[in-house]
């Protein structure tokens, strides 16, 4: 039995006209490329096939993958999908390859031309290029689906504006810069975790495959949540570890914990800014905790606390000394500032009738971290600037302060921010104890 979701997408994507038009148009382009210029036909065809694949699969395909979730939500068919008996994996691959099936149809023609021209031109790397293009195409499509599923849970405005596809499309464009012209990539070796990998293209293929698997896995996990199949939050911190291990492999000088800390912090911010942090969610967590429903607690837990915890775990492991001081103390201070920022976002998210709490919180963080310190620094009040942003010493090598003072100031920031959150929770409890505010449909 064919996957119903895949079949539905085939119905929508293909018509007799489209079936004929795609090979006809591609044939014309390849014919023009074969007879154009002084370079050999095979070389022209090879580059043309690569460019066309990137345009058809990576760019246009990403737009279609974006529509796979956005259109369901916009056209109000998502409830029907959620009410179906299809399991998350069937739904994921049905959308991943169904919504982009027409792009893969065109892409497959490009790949045949790429393979034939590569063989004709005696290229040794045509298979690597071919596999790389396929992996990147799937990686982009799975990423855009995962991003939209992640934001669809609470960012309805974003969905109305067309979802998160633009991020992947920009990403695809950047990839296009390198992958569309394979001859620009040198064939020099890559040193990774002390291993010498003979060809950069082999390494790129390995990387693309690794991230393709991660993206498909993410899309499946998020689809599970969308279909009310609850998951526990282990995959997101695992991804941080994989990403840290991947990037730490490029430098023998930078410790794994240092890379891991910054990746955990960056992804904490990414999730903090894109997840819902309403008081409702935290009240639900409180109830789960009180009922000792640990599975329910973990299933409802937002993702950012998991990576924030990882950041705190990485910090004391940072066994290095930089010009700004002891690594572990520095990273621990930064982790405390991350906690402070999380609390600022929670503080605004917990406000009654909160409107755009994340935007407001980011604005206050920018004022606190950059605008005010620069203002006080300009006025010659460097101590106040340092107190407002202890990070300024870490990055600008100021003459005063120390690792421990950094840590102390960051601790004060975090404690004050935690206090504000506690006050907000107290206020909400006080309001709840009063008359009911109203009833919703």
């Amino acid at each position: 039995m064919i996957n119903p979701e895949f079949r539905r997408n085939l119905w929508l994507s293909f018509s007799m006209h489209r079936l004929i038009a795609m090979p006809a148009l591609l044939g014309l382009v390849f014919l023009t490329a074969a007879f154009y210029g002084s370079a050999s036909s095979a070389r022209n065809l090879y580059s043309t096939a690569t460019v066309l694949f990137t345009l058809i699969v990576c760019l246009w395909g990403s737009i279609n993958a974006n529509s796979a979730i956005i259109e369901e939500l916009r056209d109000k068919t998502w409830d029907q999908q959620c009410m179906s008996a299809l399991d998350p994996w069937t739904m994921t691959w049905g959308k991943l390859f169904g919504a982009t099936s027409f792009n893969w149809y065109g892409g497959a023609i490009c790949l045949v031309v790429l393979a034939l021209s590569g063989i004709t031109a005696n290229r040794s790397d045509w298979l690597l290029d071919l596999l790389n293009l396929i992996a990147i195409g799937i990686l982009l499509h799975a990423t855009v689906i995962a991003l939209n599923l992640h934001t669809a849970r609470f960012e309805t405005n974003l969905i109305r504006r067309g979802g998160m596809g633009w991020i992947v499309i920009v990403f695809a464009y950047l990839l296009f810069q390198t992958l569309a012209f394979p001859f620009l990539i040198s064939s020099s070796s890559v040193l990774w975790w002390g291993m010498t990998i003979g060809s950069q293209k082999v390494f790129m293929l390995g990387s693309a495959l690794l991230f393709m698997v991660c993206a498909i896995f993410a899309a499946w996990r998020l689809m599970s949540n969308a279909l009310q199949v609850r998951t526990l939050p282990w995959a997101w911190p695992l991804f941080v570890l994989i990403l840290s291990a991947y990037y730490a492999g490029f430098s023998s000088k930078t410790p794994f914990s240092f890379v891991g800390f910054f990746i955990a912090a960056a992804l904490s911010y990414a999730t903090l800014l894109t997840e819902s942090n309403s008081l409702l969610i935290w009240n639900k967590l409180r109830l789960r905790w009180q009922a000792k429903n640990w599975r329910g607690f973990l299933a409802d837990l937002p993702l950012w606390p998991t990576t924030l915890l990882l950041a705190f775990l990485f910090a004391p492991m940072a066994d290095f000394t930089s010009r700004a001081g002891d690594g572990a103390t520095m990273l621990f201070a930064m982790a405390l500032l991350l906690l402070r920022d999380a609390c600022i976002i929670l503080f605004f998210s917990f406000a009654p009738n909160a409107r755009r709490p994340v935007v407001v919180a980011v604005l206050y963080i920018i004022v606190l971290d950059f605008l005010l310190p620069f203002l006080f620094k300009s006025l010659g009040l460097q101590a106040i600037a340092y107190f407002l942003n202890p990070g300024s010493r870490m990055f600008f090598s100021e003459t005063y302060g120390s690792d421990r003072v950094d840590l102390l100031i960051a601790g004060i920031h975090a404690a004050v921010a935690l206090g504000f959150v506690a006050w907000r929770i107290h206020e909400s409890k006080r309001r709840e104890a009063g008359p009911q505010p109203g009833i919703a449909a």
Partner: protein
Amino acid sequence: MAAMIRISRLTFNYPGLRALDDVSLEVEAGSVTALVGPNGAGKTTLLRCIAGLETPLAGSIEVAGMDVIEQPRAVHRRMGYLSDFFGLYQELTVARCLEYAAASQGLPDAAIAQAIRDTAQRLHLSDRLAQTSGSLSRGLRQRVAIGQAIIHQPMVLLLDEPASGLDPEARSELAILFRQLQASGMTLLVSSHILAELDEYSTHLLALRDGRVLENRALQTIASADEVRILHLQLAAPDARLPDWLSGQAGVICKAVESDFAEIGFHGGANAQAALLAALVQTGFAVIRFAEHQENLQQSYLRSVAAHLEKTQ
């Protein structure tokens, strides 16, 4: 009868709002329950929680003995849901819309063609199968959406405002369909603002107000001998003797009595009612109507609201 839907202490919050407040209720298997209440009563939220589309803050929901929160996908195989603002795949034909619904609900390939034929016939869509759903009228689109929800013969069907936007003829057809579905053993929970329409097919009333259950009961029951029923008596012409005569009869509680009309509470079965009628005629009253008064859904609902308001004031 056994409960098909069992809800216990269900609480659901929206930011700053409590949509469902400690709701506990049961829906009888094989019933058609009218879910009524003013705007903002929590009807849609309740239906979405039962459908497993929303996770409540607290409480439990069982459908056909299965926990909706723990096993939503398994429950979906036994459930159909038509949302208030449903959508259809505009570019697909009606046949393909139904085929997708059937396949995605796990019907085997061999059974799909027959299921499409049966559903189309039931909903009078047989001659529309080749049309794209985007080209259909509102009423026909509604029928396609209902077809998608019932094609897998669910045990429970949840419908949120299924008749909104339909013309009177289409509403009447919908009522016939719901009665047929009930006769085939399906349990229906139907929310609507139009109480007159629910009157045509509902067996039970579930009234919500301010996120709480106001009333949950069967609408029509066969009266037993020891039950008080409301009777309406109409005379051809005014007769001043009527109030005194009625107040002297055993088993009669006068509620509103005038010289030519009376609404009475009557304690007794069908034989006692026949005896009272015979006595009225023998006394010389020109009786032109003497029948049990069936309260319609709207009256029943308004009575519940009035009782609730009286209690809370």
